[in-house]
């Protein structure tokens, strides 16, 4: 343990407004801490550069799952354990349910929040690919008010986002129109549990008479942030599923992704595996057994 608890000030607040007021009064001074599954690891490693922290744990205004007819709203403070246990999320957004089950371990899931996963900004984060292929909107809140934007516009670059120093993630809104979509999520990690992603692909699609009518693709660990693969999608929209489409989609993906070599894996491996995952998904879409 290399962190010194006495070197950090950690305060709580009775409600969300109080937290937002504090963030607004001294923007950038207070680091929000929810479940601590990232910040406490940094603390133990002696690299928590956050002299002042403000706890979000237990704030009911952030911890909710609201079901409406056309959308589900998940509070930023909802833990992955809570997300996993929600039956409507499992039915309507199975990829998010799956992603939640892959966060660390059960003990991590009971503390890690969806906002934390997003705001930490790792390109390897588990929830973002699912959120991207579900056209999620993200709602940010500060003392100045709330704003909504497509989640696809949230991440700007490596660990950079549109989040302002006085803002928190209030909620993710997911439109309930994917239940008839074909869906796919696969994570490739270093082992079957407690694994950081080497490459992951999420996909939703509608196929009509062997032609791809709609498709959304998103990946983790293939760029400096979680990304929608728009160029690869473009290579598939309106196309009939056959060997040639698969090949051109693979080529599009290989050109579109830009993974790196790092401590866990190599750029070449990540590219190839991402392309293989895409091909695996397209095979699943195909009614033609001969493509196997």
């Amino acid at each position: 343990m290399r962190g010194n608890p006495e070197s950090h000030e950690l305060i709580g607040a009775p409600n969300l407004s109080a937290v937002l007021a504090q963030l607004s009064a001294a923007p950038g001074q207070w680091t929000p801490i929810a479940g601590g599954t990232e910040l406490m690891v940094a603390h133990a490693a002696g690299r928590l550069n956050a002299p002042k922290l403000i706890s979000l744990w237990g704030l009911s205004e952030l911890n909710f799952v609201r079901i409406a007819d056309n959308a589900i709203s998940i509070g930023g403070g909802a833990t992955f354990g809570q997300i996993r246990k929600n039956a409507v999320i499992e039915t309507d957004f199975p990829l998010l349910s799956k992603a939640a089950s892959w966060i660390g371990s059960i003990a991590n899931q009971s503390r890690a929040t969806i906002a934390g996963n997003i705001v930490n900004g790792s390109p390897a984060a588990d929830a973002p690919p699912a959120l991207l292929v579900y056209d999620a909107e993200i709602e940010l809140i500060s003392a100045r008010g709330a704003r909504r934007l497509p989640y696809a516009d949230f991440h700007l670059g490596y660990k950079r986002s549109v989040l302002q120093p006085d803002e928190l993630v209030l909620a993710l809104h997911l439109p309930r129109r994917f239940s008839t979509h074909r869906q796919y999520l696969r994570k490739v990690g270093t082992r079957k549990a407690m694994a950081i992603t080497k490459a992951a692909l999420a996909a939703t699609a509608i196929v009509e008479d062997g032609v791809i009518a709609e498709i959304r693709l998103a990946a983790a660990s293939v760029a400096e942030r979680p990304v929608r693969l728009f160029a690869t999608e473009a290579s598939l929209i309106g196309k009939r599923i056959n060997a040639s489409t698969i090949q051109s989609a693979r080529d599009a993906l290989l050109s579109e992704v830009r993974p790196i070599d790092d401590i866990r894996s190599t750029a070449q491996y990540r590219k190839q595996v991402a392309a293989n995952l895409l091909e695996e998904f397209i095979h699943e879409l195909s009614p033609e057994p001969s493509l196997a």
Partner: protein
Amino acid sequence: MLTPNPQDFLETMSDSPTHRPQTRIVGTPQIRKEGVDKVLGRAKYIDDLPGEGAHEGMWHGATVRSAIPRGRIRAIHFNPRIPWSEFVIVSATDIPGENHIAMIGADQPCLVSEQVNHCDEPILLLAHPDKRRLPEAVAAIRIEYDPLPAVLSIEASETLQEIVWGNDNIFKQFHLEKGNVDEVWASAAHIVEGEYSTGAQEHLYIENNGMIAEYSEETGITVWGSLQCPYYVHKSLMSVFALPADQVRVIQVETGGAFGGKEDYPSIIASHAGLLAMKAKRPIKIVYDRTEDLAATTKRHPSRTRHRTAVDGNGKLLAMEIDIALDGGAYATLSSTVLSRATLHATGPYVCPNVRISSKAWATSTVPCGAFRGFGAPQSIFAIERHMDKIALALSITPDEIRRRNFLHTGDTTATEQRMNEPIILDTLLERALKESDYHAKRKLFAGQNSRSPVKRGLGLAAFYHGAGFTGSGERYLNSLAGIDVPANNKVRVLVANTEFGQGTHTILCQIAAESLNLSYDDVEVAPCDTNVVPNSGPTVASRTSMVVGRLIERSGHQLVSMLRERASLPETYSAPEFFAACDRYRNRQGKVESLCRYEAPPNIYWDDKQYRGEAYPTFAWAVYVAEVAFDSVTYSAEVTNLYAVQEVGRVLNPTLAAGQIEGGVAQAIGYALYEKVLLNNGHMVNNQMTNYIMPTAADVPPIHVFFEEIPFAYGAYGAKGIGELPHDGPAPAILNAIQDATGHSFTAIPLLPEDIFLRFLAPTPNEEPVAQ
């Protein structure tokens, strides 16, 4: 005792209960002796101490380590922002005795004085009452170096461009000749060559290294800690502190896993805690965090093995030429003995009339390697068992048949001309392994399915042995003493310096004592593992505890019964109360009730260290493992889907513990093969966190099927042989053999990660088929 007739053993070996030696307690699944404390969470490991009132005034210690792999220290700067007067600081100049860690040699300094020879080498020690202040203080010390060229691999060391140890970078070398290898090549039907390599591996005991030390002028130094070998630490401390034996006391506390990683390393951390205790004049605790333990402590020796093998048209081995290179890191530590075991296991469990083995342990500028379950055998066995499959393929013989044709049998001689007098049942083990794994049927099924599936399946074999106990004259040299006593509390105490760290030492030795004394398991306990209390029964290594030390306990039990019959009127048959009453009578007359025995070598075990010839081991455990794997062509990752472990280990003293050893060893070896990689950057381990040094989780381990055959070893406790290391020897080659079966691709290096497999699919090597001349 006469050399046992193999035929006698073959008769006792059958499954019929009438042939098994009758025992009441040995051979039964007694509950772990210290198990209740463990499941209650009451067992106290070193970081759980001190308890109430103990080690009053204790401070905490931390270590300042080198940032470069090799160089001279030019200056040390202490940042003035830290109130240094609050700290106690120790450097090499504070060492009262020798600045070295006495192991086999004495080349490793306790603290760097002038020259750094590896990253994370200890230079200074700091102590402070508040442990939370130490990391900041360590970070506030800036060391200036004049760097020297570092040697970071076996290959770099071999060039001799930079000499980093001795005259030639070689810690140790062996050369073994049997028959005449050179005369065989010209006429051999086939010659098969191969090169195989294994990486470093970290023990990853879940409990990091830790020690508490106290020092006083009157009583000398006392250490408590997580360790395997109290007398090794004792010997090292005598040297560092220039103290006689009775002024050094070492006490093992509950130890959370070791696997060899706490065989020699504890001497270092104990010396460090002791030096701080001496200078601070107060108790000191040093406990590493995971990042420090990973970066700074010993690892398994990386290896490179080259085989050149001549076989006849039927695949019978004619000649083996083997070259072994181990990477020992910066100091010699245990490299000579690891190399020895690697050498002695290099030919596998096969007969070969002509053998040449040339082996060297090389120095590099990396953290010194040390003991790790298997101790050189996993490295060698990986090579030979991959190579046997290569030979099989070259000759179009099946993997099982090539082995059948070459297995050692009773009466054959090994590479060191050891005549195998004991029964060897490799054929039986092979048949059982093939049967339990449904090897032939599954291989056929998978071969049919694989082309139509993105997941390719296959099976692979490994046949191997593990020499039980110390090599050659090792046990004679150790001259172990162990036994039992009976204090006035009506419990028999086992007196051994051997340690429990999960493998079941306490349980087994109590079972043996209870059996030999004809008492119940609950009548026996283990004396504290304290060098002031227990004799030196040798280290807890080399799979020797049950076999060798257990035998001393068995003999001590019988000896005590004789003593009590002779001197205290113990009746011919007796109850426990009568036994303890006799002990009381004995104690009243003699002062204490104690029965110790010293090691006696089995007859006809002669080992010539100079010629490197003779009986290398008194006995061997034998095994055939089958690995079943699934290779996913989408992700290029291989996983083990079943592992069948069939072994002959002498008498199984406790079936639960024995199976537990096999299962744990197999899981560790699966990690060795497919998951665990030590990543070095300029000699420093960069993946020194649990998040990126990958061991298999509960979700990753396959079903492990364990089967025992038992041929009692006459000179082991109740027939026991060694068991702890055997299971780490076989899985890795069996797994890579299975991957070749599944994919058609041969891989010769471990750890084999998906990224490595992927590269082969990107650019298959032109000659996938083995070269057969």
